[in-house]
């Protein structure tokens, strides 16, 4: 079913770089002072890769994600998606935030329609997708509920479904489940992995949980602070589909220890 509703729009070869970041710098101006938040970022993300941007607060991982999504403008350097320089938000990119930001005056169905409305898309056609998307995120039959009738976890599921409404090639997720309790969060992480694996979408996830990053990602970009820079670009080599059994492996422990070492956590 995932393949049907979320199939890729074009068949780009899997080895081709989809997101290309070269010599990227970002400085913010605050109270007349310039503050460098990202220094010399160089990255290539392939189509279908699951990438985590991991690092402590202030390492610029969220800023990097917003730059990729065209929500803020870079200082110097280049960000390209499918060989197009990113200047503004584009429709092949779907964003998801830590807060569900559902509109309280709209039902679940109307919230899901919103991205289609804003993109002046075909609403009647989009409505046919709603049922499938709701069952994909495990909330079948909730079309006519209002957001404030749903729990935090359910709201985040709706938020995920809304991001998938336009069937974007790339999902940019800014700590999407960060505000939820650990059980709900784990649950949603597995939902997300499932969707990502089966749809072949490129996922860039911002997180500050080392275990979450190791469990979910094909690659982890470990970032440091002052200014934000890349410490290491790690490949995480586990078979898919991933299960929590990998937590018990030697390799998992080694990845965890290595990242903790990089970030200077523990003793």
């Amino acid at each position, binding site marked *: *079913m*995932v393949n049907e509703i979320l199939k890729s729009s074009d068949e780009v070869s899997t080895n081709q770089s989809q997101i290309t970041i070269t010599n990227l710098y970002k400085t913010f101006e605050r109270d007349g002072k310039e503050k460098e938040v990202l220094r010399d970022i160089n990255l290539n993300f392939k189509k279908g890769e699951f990438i985590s941007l991991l690092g402590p607060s202030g390492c610029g991982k969220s800023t990097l994600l*917003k730059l990729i*999504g065209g*929500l803020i403008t870079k200082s110097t350097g280049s960000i390209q998606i499918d060989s197009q320089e990113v200047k*503004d*938000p*584009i*429709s092949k*990119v*779907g*964003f998801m*935030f*830590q*807060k569900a*930001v559902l*509109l*309280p*005056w709209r039902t679940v169905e109307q919230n899901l329609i*919103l*991205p289609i*409305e*804003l*993109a002046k898309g075909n609403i009647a056609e989009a409505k046919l997708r709603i049922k499938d998307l709701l*069952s*994909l*995120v*495990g*909330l*079948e039959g909730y079309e006519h509920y*209002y957001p*404030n*009738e*749903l*729990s*935090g*976890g*359910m709201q985040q*599921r709706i938020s995920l479904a809304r991001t998938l409404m*336009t069937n974007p090639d790339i999902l940019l997720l800014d700590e999407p489940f960060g505000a939820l309790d650990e*059980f*709900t969060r784990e*649950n949603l992480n*597995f*939902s997300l992995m*499932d969707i990502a694996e*089966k749809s072949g979408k490129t996922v860039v996830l911002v997180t500050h949980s080392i275990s979450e990053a190791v469990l979910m990602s094909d690659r982890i970009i470990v970032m440091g602070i002052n200014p934000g820079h890349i410490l290491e670009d790690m490949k995480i080599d586990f078979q898919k589909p991933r299960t929590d059994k990998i937590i018990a492996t030697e390799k998992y422990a080694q990845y965890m220890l290595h990242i903790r070492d990089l970030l200077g956590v523990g003793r």
Partner: protein
Amino acid sequence: MKAITTSEQEIKIPKPKIIRIEYLLSLLLLVFILVLWEVLSRFKIVHELILPGPMVVIGSMFELLAAPFFYSNLGVTLFETLAGFALGSIFSIVLALIVVSVPILYKVLNPFIIILQAVPKVALAPIFVTWFGFGLTAKIVMAIAICFFPTFINTVVGLKSVDEDSKLLFQSMVASKKDLFLKLSLPTALPYIFAGLKASLTFALIGAIVGEFMGADKGIGMLINTFNFQLEMDKVYALIIILSIIALLLYLFIEWLDKKIVFWTDNK
């Protein structure tokens, strides 16, 4: 694919309403006040010219309600109030929209807004009479002046209260400026706008009455003035009670409208 099961699918249940003892005590207090009032008046502890008893006042109220002249005067006051309210609300909302969408205008006008807000609007009544005479216009302008700010300030605050996350979301979904306004800013501001409207509707009535006090040949304010001069205090009290009931009804109407339109703030 199989549906993903969720562990957090509980639905929030609204709490059942309980009739509280406070309501009963409020009612008892009301009865006590009425009895005390009647006693004070009936046994001439307070002179009946100053404080006619509730029974007398209620009698006068029905007398007034049966008189045709009452309704023509009420109509004038209601017209002034509602016209002032409608015009004042439209002005304030439109001006708030303009001011918020042009940031420079907001910065330039802000000091003036703060100063004008501080002016006791009632003190302007004599000026309005000088400008517009003793007709309806002066009263409507008075009502507009007094009910402008609550809605204006609330609309500005409401439009500015759109949170950054929602703005980012709309931006990420490539929303047009028009959609951003119609589908995000305006609905976000609606609860604030209604809070302003609720306050300003009763303010508009105050404006109309004060305007009539300055000089009028029709209206409830004029009637109060006249009866006051004739020392028919029972009728003055009766009119004040009727005005209060009208103000309450207007308020309840706006509140009903608020609940209908801004339904989503209800069960939070």
